[in-house]
């Protein structure tokens, strides 16, 4: 009982966040990527998917994967307020994960974007889905964003023309904060964000299997 009370006091208050409605996107390969919101029960699978990347130095996968890993744990164990996780799957196989959180009803905070499968702009599409969630479903006015890799900087800061706001602190640390405003979202959304709804039930059912990737292009010769 004492443990329960302690645990309760350790948990942040929760806001009732509207769910992210799943969608699917036809990638350049012709494969369909389903983007749906992961639940706390899904986290163990996601941790397994992320774990191999924690030691990949190339393209800063290590720092991004390690931080995402911790954030997934924090989400699962109720240690971050109003966090969410979106996952991209192709034929049920996890190909990418993004997360963030709601700071308040007006401001969102983007955490991380990890693309496991590469060369199909999966990271770009998952990031766009994350911004779509903040702006179009949570109804926020702006999203605070930082990047830890040059790829992220090019894809978000430059391509979305994010507003530089170094005076605003981002929870991920000292990297200068950039901001996606509602106006910037409306400007870039048509060329950055796509996908169809509803996802056919059988496709969504497969997506929810969250099959672990059997190969990682970042890790030649990977065997699970």
């Amino acid at each position, binding site marked *: 009982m004492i443990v329960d009370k302690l645990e309760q006091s350790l948990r942040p208050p929760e806001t009732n966040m509207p769910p992210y409605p799943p969608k699917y996107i*036809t990638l350049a390969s012709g494969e369909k990527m389903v983007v749906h919101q992961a639940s706390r029960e899904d986290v163990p699978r996601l941790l397994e998917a992320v774990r191999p990347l924690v030691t990949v130095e190339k393209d800063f996968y290590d720092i991004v994967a390690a931080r995402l890993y911790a954030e997934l744990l924090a989400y699962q164990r109720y240690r971050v307020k109003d966090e969410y996780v979106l996952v991209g799957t192709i034929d049920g196989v996890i190909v990418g994960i993004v997360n963030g959180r709601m700071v308040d009803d007006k401001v969102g905070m983007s955490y991380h974007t990890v693309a496991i499968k590469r060369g199909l702009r999966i990271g770009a599409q998952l990031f766009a889905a994350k911004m779509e969630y903040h702006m179009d479903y949570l109804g926020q006015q702006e999203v605070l964003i930082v990047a830890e890799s040059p790829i992220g900087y090019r894809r978000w800061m430059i391509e979305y023309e994010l507003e530089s706001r170094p005076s605003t602190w981002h929870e991920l640390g000292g990297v200068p904060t950039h901001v996606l405003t509602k106006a910037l979202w409306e400007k870039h959304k048509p*060329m950055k964000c*796509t996908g169809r709804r509803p996802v056919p039930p059988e496709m969504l059912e497969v997506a929810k299997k969250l099959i672990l990737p059997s190969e990682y292009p970042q890790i030649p010769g990977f065997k699970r």
Partner: protein
Amino acid sequence: MVRKVGIAGVGHTKFGRSEVPLVDMLALAALEALDDAGIRTGKGHGVDQVFVASMGAGLLNRQSSVASALVDTLNLQPAMAETVENGPASGASAVKLGYMAIASGMCDVALVVGGELMRVVTGWEATDFVATMLHPDAEYAYGLTLPAFAGMFTRLYMDKYGVTEKDLAMVAVKNHEHAMHNPVAHIQLVPSFHAIIEDEDAPVINPYVAEPLRVYDVCPVSDGAAAVVLCAMDLADRFPKKPVRIAGIGQATDTHVVAEREVPTDLLAVRLAAQRAYAMAGLKPEDIDVAELHDAFTILEIAISEEAGLFPRGKGHLAVRRGETRVGGRIPINTSGGLKAKGHPLGATGVSQIVELVRQLRGEAGGRQVEGARHGLAVNFGGFGNNVVATILSKEE
């Protein structure tokens, strides 16, 4: 008397992102080519001359005199050495100079290496760097880039000849399919024609870069190196493999300022370079069995195929629709994957095209082999067509 010149060895790094510095990358391609030619570096190596093609070593990598550095790295002293810069046609220019060095009798064996380390900068910076070859006052100063020129050229070509975005996507899909059989190609992924051009997600998945050109119409930014060992054909017996003969080389230039061209859809330098190469080789376009054409943009494969006489003017895209330019078709083009899928490390490209033709003519091209290929054509395109080198290789019977 002019000596006949052949290619005794070829080498090629995997295009994409290099894990090693520029000169080391050049050395990797060179060592493979030397090994292929049965040449060991060090004392008594027998290499008289080294040419290195690179457009960006100075601007991107802050390194000059790359050929001298490569000779030292490979222990090829006291070989003569020069670095060659002719924009994206640097590679073919270096091969041409290697040919001249041997044909003149000045050398017996020349090593030609092309390479570029481009992914040290962002895509935008790479695009700006490539644009430095445009006219500084009439073009570059106004923010013009190569994709911008290619976009305008494509629009004109579409209006004049009925080329469509679907035709361009067919070129892209074909070249990506070819690249799947080329282990050194940068991109090992076949896009779905429907997904990149017809699907409702296509505008986002395959967005316009320079309308009407989309992402899948444009070559990637790549690192990579390629190398060939040239030899006098009268010394062919020294080498383990029968050299493939350089049958013809043609080069031509056009106005630096593209707007000064009489007909903006004509690529005169391509036409002249090809005609000169055919004349030197004593061949006609219909003799060509396989071609590597400079498809930095998909439209260029179509336009160059016409200027090089492989198809009538304005009909190249119809040949693409009929599948004539894929492996198994009448005249397979860009069996390597082309610049589009194999990648385009500028200084390497002209040499890489020659490497592919040698592999085709030797019958070493694996799943992309053109059966019975005897004559191959390469067109390496510099500037926006203002300095073009065409090379014809022939298999010696």
